[in-house]
């Protein structure tokens, strides 16, 4: 069945709200406005204002409230419009949601799902174009997901809500308009990475909004006789290093594509894992293609120069292959 990524997110939330009365949706303009990215259009009319709660612009406040409600026996889905605004709520996420189970000696768990848009590419300039998944993937106590396909957008929410601990779902803003077939086996786990394209010459490792670029790069490389394998991390914490190792044992070369800034990026963590676990399988230094380390500029050609692009991925792949 053909649908957009946005529609897949909507169906996932609709199914959760219909199936479990404990589930409710809270966030800025999720109700009357239908959601900034129209993922909750029609929910207010169907489920009522108690379970579809528009919030004031108080990110720290309503994310903290979401944590409290989860502790109080509900299953909240809190939508923080974008990762850019989640910075205001980081204290509640890091110091309460992530730490509580351990801090309370195992007494409490926080079954909260946080959804937020992420990434750049629409000329929204520096304050609205962040890609900070790596900040969240740094924190023990929360699971971090990056659905990059229609199937994952539809399938990840269920298991995330069933998880007794906090789960943060990053939806890249450029993916909402992605259109495609919903695979029959959309039900999925939230623990493993996925091989989106088999290959033997180099492993392109990526996640979220960069997956389409990595697949396009693999397409170009194939035309030049280079068989690139594309790995979609899906889960940014904990990283599925087993899938990475299996791929490296085959290709011996890797390029990590990550829209975050290079220093301390998720790409850096993936590279560290590869060097730690696959050192003797490496036939070339691991390369990475990240955003240029600059606040994302507004002008289109400057934003494009700052972000990872297909030509850069192809060049990096050729470099590690020594072509």
């Amino acid at each position, binding site marked *: 069945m053909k649908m*957009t990524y*946005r529609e897949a997110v909507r169906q996932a939330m609709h199914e959760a709200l219909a199936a479990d009365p404990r589930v409710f949706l809270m966030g800025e303009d999720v109700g009357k406005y*239908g959601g900034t*990215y*129209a993922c909750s*259009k029609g929910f207010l009319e169907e489920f009522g204002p108690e379970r579809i709660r528009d919030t004031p612009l108080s990110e720290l406040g309503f994310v903290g409230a979401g944590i409290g409600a989860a502790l109080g026996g509900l299953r909240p889905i809190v939508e923080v419009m974008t990762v850019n605004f989640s910075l205001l709520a980081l204290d509640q996420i890091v110091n309460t949601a992530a730490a509580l189970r351990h801090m309370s000696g195992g007494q409490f768990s926080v079954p909260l799902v946080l959804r937020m848009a992420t990434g750049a590419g*629409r*000329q*929204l300039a520096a304050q609205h174009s962040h890609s900070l998944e790596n900040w969240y993937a740094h924190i023990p106590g929360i699971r971090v997901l990056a659905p990059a396909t229609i199937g994952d957008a539809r399938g990840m929410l269920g298991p995330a809500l069933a998880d007794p601990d906090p789960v943060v779902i990053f939806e890249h*803003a*450029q993916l*909402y*308009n992605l259109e495609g077939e919903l695979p029959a086996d959309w039900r999925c786990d939230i623990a493993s990475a996925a091989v989106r394209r088999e290959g033997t010459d180099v492993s392109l490792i990526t996640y979220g909004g960069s997956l389409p670029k990595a697949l396009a790069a693999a397409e170009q490389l194939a035309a030049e006789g280079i068989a690139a394998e594309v790995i979609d991390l899906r889960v940014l914490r904990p990283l599925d290093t087993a899938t990475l190792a299996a791929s490296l044992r085959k290709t*011996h070369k890797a390029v990590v594509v990550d829209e975050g800034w290079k220093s301390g990026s998720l790409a850096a963590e993936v590279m560290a894992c590869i060097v730690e676990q696959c*050192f*003797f*399988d*490496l*036939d*070339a*230094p691991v*390369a990475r*293609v990240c955003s*240029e380390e600059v606040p994302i500029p507004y002008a*289109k*050609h400057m934003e*494009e*120069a700052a972000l990872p*692009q297909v*030509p*850069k991925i192809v*060049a*990096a792949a050729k*470099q*590690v292959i*020594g072509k």
Partner: protein
Amino acid sequence: MIEFKLPSLGADMDEGKLLEWKVRPGDTVKKGQVVAIVDTSKAAVDVESWSEGTVFELLIEPGETIPVGTVMATLLEAGERPETAQRTPRPAPAPKPAAPTVAPAATARPTPAVAGRRRISPAARKHAEELGVDIETIAGTGPEGAVTLADVEQAAAAAKVSPAKTAAAPDKAAEMRKAIAAAMSRSKREIPHYYLSEPVPMRRATEWLAKANEGRPITSRLLMAVLQLKAVALALRKFPEMNGFFRDGAFQPAASAHIGVAISLRQGGLIAPAIHDVGEKTLEQLMLDLTDLVKRARAGSLRSSEMSDPTITVTNLGEQGVAAVYGVIYPPQVALVGFGRIVEQPWAENGALTVVPVVTASLAADHRVSDGHRGALFLAALRDLLQQPENL
């Protein structure tokens, strides 16, 4: 004629579906008037006209989805008459506003090859061990001359294909040629060489050597080369700037003189493995070391440590060569001493002319580390040492 195009109605909107026209051909339109309702992926939105005129043609039917910028309708400007106006064909999608193309910034290349330690990938090293291939003899074809898996597999295959050692030799020689080429071109690219030479009268040295060898069985006879090596090592004590490595933009003097001895291999190629601590060894010990080194070099069983840690190199053309040799320094070393052929030459001394065996000693040195003046003093010291063989 005014073309009314589908405007962009949002940051993440590339196309829109026309739901309803709010005007019909012949209607007049004022600035800011809503003329249509278009469904973006998020909501139905009123679309205004920014120009004034009378509607002439509606080119898109409700229900059609068109990309942003597509001509949807045409308006007649004041004074234009429908009869004379020219009909517009079905809309072709408007081209995207052009922005300058972006050259892909080159990804950061790994730091340039640091000479000395050879660049061998972990996988290649492991695979070589598994196949029992000596990794040191494999020239790299990977990035920056690194030895890669493919190089190991090719070398292993080559070894398997030709059982006779010599048959494999040409491959090995070709690979060695590549390694030498890489080192030499890097040297010429990075090291600002300066060259000096000095003729050295060798009568006293040759006489001393002949007398020394008289009392020795043939198996422990000394060659002139060891005298020359020892002289170089002793001279280096007063000129440390000739002995060491130039790495990461700075000179690192070596604690002792590990002298690389240039050895030519029978099937072609040249390597310069090191004799360690030459300054501290007797001539007899140096002769033993030299003999062993040449034998193992030619048998291809040198240890990798011997290959990569000489702090200076001496090249000696022996009896067949020419009068003088000006060599190319082996990076990361900073100097190379050359000895030409010992030749009988007329020599003026205290006004009298005699015939004396003479060798031309030459120095190629790295001008980043030492200057001609110090180089000349070093050669002079070498000249004086060679004329006191008894002190070597």
